[in-house]
């Protein structure tokens, strides 16, 4: 097949570009350790969240030495608990699910961003550092109150957290 030499050059560059993109993402997945939301969170009966020990009482609790679990319910049109309070300089694993429709869970201005699907549990682990407040919003249309659906993630100074304890919804 007759391909002009310039186009052959471009073909090689295009393949290199593609390889470069795949390598970058692989680097992120391996060296940096970025993990995708996947099926680790398991499934759940969306109509029976109240009976689930995690989501029946949405809350933050300590599960390891410096590791906290946040059990979050996203529903029309709130997040529970609100606010989600965690101590600074810790590792937090969010477990998020929905009893009604598909929502999004986005910690604004960060990379913590997941779909929330009824029947599935989204699990994501992040490290929080200095004390500060983040907004949370729903970024998947979930009904006519979708634009009012917001929450808060408060990273408290460690001593304040130890005194006040965790908040539940």
């Amino acid at each position, binding site marked *: 097949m007759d391909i002009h030499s310039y186009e052959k050059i*471009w073909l090689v560059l295009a393949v290199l*570009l593609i390889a470069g993109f795949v390598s*970058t993402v692989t680097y992120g997945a391996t060296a940096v350790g970025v993990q995708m939301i996947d099926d680790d969170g398991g499934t759940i009966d969306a109509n029976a969240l109240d009976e689930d020990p995690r989501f029946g009482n949405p809350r933050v609790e300590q599960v390891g030495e410096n590791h906290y679990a946040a059990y979050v319910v996203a529903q029309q049109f709130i997040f529970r608990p609100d606010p989600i309070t965690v101590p600074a300089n810790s590792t937090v694993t969010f477990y998020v699910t929905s009893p009604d429709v598909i929502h999004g869970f986005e*910690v604004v201005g*960060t*990379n913590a961003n997941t779909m929330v699907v009824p029947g599935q549990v989204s699990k994501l*682990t*992040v*490290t929080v550092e200095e004390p500060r407040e*983040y907004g949370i919003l729903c970024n998947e249309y979930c009904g006519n109150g979708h634009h009012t659906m917001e929450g808060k993630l408060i990273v408290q100074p460690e001593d304040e957290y130890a005194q006040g304890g965790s908040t539940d919804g």
Partner: protein
Amino acid sequence: MSDEQPATEIGHEEFDPNGTLALILIYFAILVVMWVFMYFVEFLGNELTVIG
């Protein structure tokens, strides 16, 4: 519209798309720079990256 006769006719053998090569190399350079910026500065430089 553009139904006029071309000023000259250039056949397959004589035509080397030099301008195209130049433009596409510039595009390639922009893509590489933008990708590196987006991935390493905007993404990895952002907070709360999901590591588990």
